[in-house]
């Protein structure tokens, strides 16, 4: 039954003009409009930025882009939802605090810690169509396999090293070295990653301490002293690579600790930068996907992971970002010259062995290291 107030907008304007609409009817319509506006987001979820039925991918800032999900988008029409963390440690703390996602993106050094937290579940490998193409050497990293289940799908591998301005940083004929980030000539022009997960390790390499020895008190103090010495030279501690890149581009920084993608990005913008190959060795790592034990959407979670280890994603990651990829076929899509230009090889073992490969640390030490580094950054 049509009530008196149920009238179309056309009718309404007509009746408003002719004066046949009562004040009461008009007010009812206004109230209706108000409720409709409040209710809109509830009624049409498609209007919201984050579609609820897509899987959620919890990752490093910079990896939250649809380009890594071409197969997923083809299948489901749009990219997964993204959430970003500034470092593995921060990501884990958020998950421990009860944040539930489908897939997260830790790196090998913290993998056993993540698995031990009991927040992950093993994959159903039959749902990962690209699993067989994953480079075997990357499948058996410490922590990947636990009680017969596979918890970690390696995705990207690369280095933490120094990006520096060729035109502004004068090496004076010396070899490239981690010492560039401790060079007092460039006080106030050096940028460093704010997470101990990178910086503490790089300082350990510079100190000449082997990773297997880094947890002793003596070596802890040695590395901490080096980082304290660096503090007055640092203009910027940040987890945001874009901030570092912009500061390098403007000349505000002459050298910064970055990952592989920064020099590739800056060169594309014609900024004269070089990706250092420090004589002490660069820090190397493998990162990849894990699945939350309460993943609300396990099927889409597998699709996200399968997309991450696909050739499409690999080609993009190699060519555009300069990272290595875990799918051996990805490298066939990139020319030999381009690989050489990016400083990558087809065989991850070659690169991981050439640098200093991150190893998992015990939890006591990790907490101590994180606490100490915050104190150093604050100036103490």
């Amino acid at each position, binding site marked *: 039954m049509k009530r008196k107030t149920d009238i179309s907008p056309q009718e309404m304007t007509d009746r408003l003009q002719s004066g046949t609409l009562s004040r009461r009817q008009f007010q009812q319509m206004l109230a209706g409009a108000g409720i409709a506006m409040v209710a809109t987001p509830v009624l049409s979820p498609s209007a919201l930025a984050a579609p609820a039925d897509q899987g959620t991918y919890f990752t490093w800032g910079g990896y939250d882009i649809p380009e890594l999900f071409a197969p997923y988008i083809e299948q489901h029409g749009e990219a997964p939802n993204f959430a970003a963390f500034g470092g593995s440690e921060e990501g884990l703390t958020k998950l421990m605090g009860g944040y539930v996602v489908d897939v997260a993106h830790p790196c090998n050094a913290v993998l056993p810690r993540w698995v031990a937290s009991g927040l992950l579940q093993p994959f159903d490998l039959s749902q990962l169509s690209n699993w067989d193409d994953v480079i075997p050497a990357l499948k058996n990293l410490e922590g990947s396999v636990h009680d017969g289940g596979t918890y970690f799908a390696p995705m990207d591998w690369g280095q933490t090293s120094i990006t520096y301005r060729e035109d502004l940083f004068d090496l004076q004929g010396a070899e490239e070295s981690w010492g560039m980030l401790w060079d007092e000539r460039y006080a106030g022009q050096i940028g460093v990653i704010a997470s101990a997960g990178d910086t503490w390790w790089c300082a350990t390499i510079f100190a000449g301490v082997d990773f297997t020895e880094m947890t002793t008190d003596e070596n802890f103090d040695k590395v901490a002293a080096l980082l304290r010495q660096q503090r007055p030279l640092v203009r*910027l501690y940040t987890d945001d690579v874009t901030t570092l890149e912009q500061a390098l581009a403007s000349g505000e920084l002459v050298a910064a600790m970055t990952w592989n993608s920064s020099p590739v990005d800056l060169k594309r913008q014609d900024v004269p930068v070089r990706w250092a190959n420090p004589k002490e060795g660069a820090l190397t790592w493998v990162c990849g996907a894990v699945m939350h034990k309460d993943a609300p959407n396990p099927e889409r979670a597998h699709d996200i992971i399968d997309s991450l280890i696909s050739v499409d994603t690999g080609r993009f990651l190699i060519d555009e970002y300069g990272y290595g990829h875990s799918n051996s076929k990805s490298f066939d899509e990139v020319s030999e010259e381009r690989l050489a230009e990016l400083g990558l090889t087809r065989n991850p073992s070659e690169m991981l062995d050439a640098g200093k490969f991150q190893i998992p640390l015990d939890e006591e030490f990790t907490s101590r290291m*994180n606490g100490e580094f915050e104190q150093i950054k604050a100036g103490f």
Partner: protein
Amino acid sequence: MTQTHDTLRGRLYAFFLRSEPVRGFALLSPTLLIMLAGMCVPFVILVAMSFWTQHVFEFDTTLSLTNYNEIVDKPMYRVLLTRSLAISGACTVATVLLAYPMAYYVAFHVHRHKMVWIVLMTLPFWSSYLLRVFAWKIILGYNGAINASFMGLGWLEKPLEFLLYSPTAVVITLTHAWAAFAILPIYVSLEKIDRSLLEAATDLGDGPVKRFIGVTLPLSLPGVIAASLLIFIPTVGDFVTPALVGGPDGAMIANLIQVQFARVNNWPMGAALSLAMMVIIAAISLLYIWTARRFTEYGR
């Protein structure tokens, strides 16, 4: 008395109508519930947690003063707290000094379209806070508006580096961001001043300066006090501004609290720091109100 008042429901209803406090609380109840669930309960948890200690992933729930002892012992906490108070103190003074003339002008010299002026003054609030911080990053940056134009004019050889990633940058950004919070209360107290008092002062021979110091300023002090508290209290705990423009030397206590809950994963320490900050801010504010009250009473 009618029949219904004998039933329990009826009696309750009668009590409800008769008792003013009960009606008041009933009216407040939605707000009270939200306050209870959203403020009081979390606050109690925060207080309890601050006496716990963290062991890797587990909380040790035996009560201890470990966290508070550490706050007192380690110079880092003291320095960051003092720095936070200094930065927001500087920001409060700067904001009030800059806002007062604006509010004064609108209150005394604008006679038409006052509302338009007020709206224009709150214009910065129409854009997102984060956008405003980024705008300041662009203005203060190494190749930013200030450095680029000064270098273009030949006044500078090298960009001024203290502009960005420094405590100065935090003070500048906060001052701009909180301006409207100072202008409005000061404007209201200036607007309320009885103009005949000013005329009387003039008739009795006061010049403009003496009249301002003797009449206008004391009468507008309530607005100034409100504005300073309104700015000081929230800015001490500001997190995003120092994170984006502060640099290593501009970090404030809130940044340290954030890392306790994230990277460092020591929630009890974060809780203790938050409470310490709260207590110190409360103490400073009470002291300020008390002094201000004594001062304004003398003025009368």
